């Protein structure tokens, strides 16, 4: 058992005794990993947030069944996977009766994917793909997503038109996805 897993299990033990602050610490510590895991299968931030929250609530409800053997994160991911599966079924029913929208296009793609496929490494691939980007592209992505810099500000900072920035972001996202989807991991 590695040191991180051991530390997590110690916090889990406190949470299992009813310590909500301890569980709060678990959410803060692990939400990023779980979010990335969910993001490898979801198409919208709204869905990711929803599954993330549902995963932790279910984990709290079933905390007593977790056996502290250094596998809390995989256990959480298992719950997230089940919630994703349930959400795929629920959205399939909901979308059949909802008005057409771009969200529905995303839901259809989400519903159509293989619920059983394993993409545990997708987040790691994503990070490696980012590292492979040209420095200027990586800078643009980090400013846009990491710092929330909007199109107008990016246009000023990079001395380009809004349209050129939109196009650049578009190309970078396409490159990142193509890299993630590649059969072999990027070197």
């Amino acid at each position, binding site marked *: 058992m590695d040191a991180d897993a051991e530390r997590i299990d110690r916090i889990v033990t406190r949470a299992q005794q009813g310590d909500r602050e301890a569980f709060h610490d678990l959410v803060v510590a692990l939400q990023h990993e779980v979010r990335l895991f969910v993001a490898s299968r979801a198409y919208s*931030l709204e869905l990711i947030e929803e599954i993330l929250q549902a995963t932790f609530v279910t984990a709290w409800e079933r905390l007593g069944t977790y056996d502290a053997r250094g596998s809390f994160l995989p256990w959480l991911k298992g719950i997230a996977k089940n919630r994703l599966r349930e959400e795929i079924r629920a959205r399939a029913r909901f979308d059949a009766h909802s008005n057409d929208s771009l969200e529905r296009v995303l839901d259809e793609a989400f519903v159509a994917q293989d619920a059983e496929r394993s993409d545990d490494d*997708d987040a790691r691939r994503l990070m490696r793909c980012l590292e492979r980007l040209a420095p200027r592209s990586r800078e643009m992505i980090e400013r846009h997503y990491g710092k929330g810099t909007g199109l107008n500000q990016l246009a000023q900072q990079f001395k380009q038109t809004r349209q050129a920035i939109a196009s650049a972001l578009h190309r970078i*996202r396409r490159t990142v996805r193509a890299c993630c989807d590649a059969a072999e991991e990027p070197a």
Partner: protein
Amino acid sequence: MSAYSFELLIQAWLDGTLDDEGESALLRLVRSDGALREEFLTQARANAQLASLLAFGDGAVSAKRVALLIRSRTESRSFRTSRSVIDRIDRGMTAPSRPFPLRRLALAATLLLLVVVAGLTLHGQGAEAKDRIAASTSGDLRVMRAGVAVQPEEGLRASDQVVAGSAGGSVSYADGTRVDLDAGSEASFDTVAAAKQVRLAHGRIHVSAAKQPPTAPMVIATDRAQATVVGTRFWLSSDAERTRLVVEDGVVRFSDASGTHDISHGAAVSSPPAGTPLRVMTWNVNGGYGGADLQAHAIIAIGADLIALQQVRSTAVIADYVSEIERVTESTWHLVYAAEESAGQACCIISRFAPTSTGARDIGKSSLGSHRAAARATVSVGGRTITFATAYLDWSEKETDSRTENLANYLGWMDDAPGARILTGGFRSYHDSPWVRRIETAYDDAWKVVSGSGLGPATKGGRIDYVFRSTAAAAELVPLRSWTVETDLSDHRALVTDFSVSPP
């Protein structure tokens, strides 16, 4: 369309800045071209992953939302399965101050009303009885002057009593303002410093007012209230119990013992007895497609004490509503959540008051084959016990059996609810439908009580969302005002009703 335009559309959509027209254009593109659809999905997926990787800081917001959900669930009652209901009964709370100090306003308004009414009376007595009113009469009207009938052709004078016969009649002013009196109505007319003044003794009048000078607004008074008019059309009625105002166009300032309110198009108001004010709202949020945070802000702006929401998408979304409402109002709110089996059809109650009991109930199948649910919360308001409930009935016009079953179960469940009852929800039924008639065997439509008519503003294509009050509680739970709130955050308007809760 150029590739640039497509890319800009997608970027704007991802940034949340694309307007409805742009969204429709983008939807048409991705629906008509498979390659563009794939590109859109690629962009959306990469966006979600990049934002997840780079944008979410230390996760404190997520942790707070999870904590709220856990707190709610831990204190829940079971409904179908324990995970399908969040039923939060929290620790004691301090109610935030209402949007305006109603009690002080009520006192001030009462004094103001007394002064105005006294002023009108004194003016009538002190002024020359022969003061002519620049208005003519038509239709079936009798004019009484000092108890003696006079010919209407003589024209109106201050303090004349105008009584409408069975066909009703009209009083028309030179500026085009017209007052129509229903059969049996009685009113007197006056002009004070160029301001038109009408005193409605009883009955109902319809006012179509030309634009009035701001310094001399038209005032219509009853024993209990007064309406101040700048230029508008509305109905005003008065009987032994209450004064009602229904505004068709423009804005009318309505003052009564509870305070002064600007009543706008599509709203109705009724003068109240004294009591504790209670504001309730019901809103079909249609899955939260305007975004939970934006919808939460719209809810906060309404200032309701008891909030019923239908077609809530999920537990995560409802947590977003509550956490945002709590953040902005800086007070604790209480949640009762009832989930249908399938996503998007749940309903919930968010209460400013700590409930003394709560519940959720399966109310039968929907036309989609899953089950509908109802939620209720019993609270104490001004010492009165009130049970507030909500549900979303089956929508299908073809499968009305499900709606009938949903309603029967909802009403049956409410039979044993403690205290006075307020029934809200998406009933998917018009005011003269068999379902609403069934409800009205034991409940009163609050809009109808206030306005005197079943016809009223649409919540979606017609009146299909309602607030009902149990008929047995008519004396203790009095609807004063009812109105809809325009919004582009859902395809339904919110319906809001102000009640006066009489002291026990």
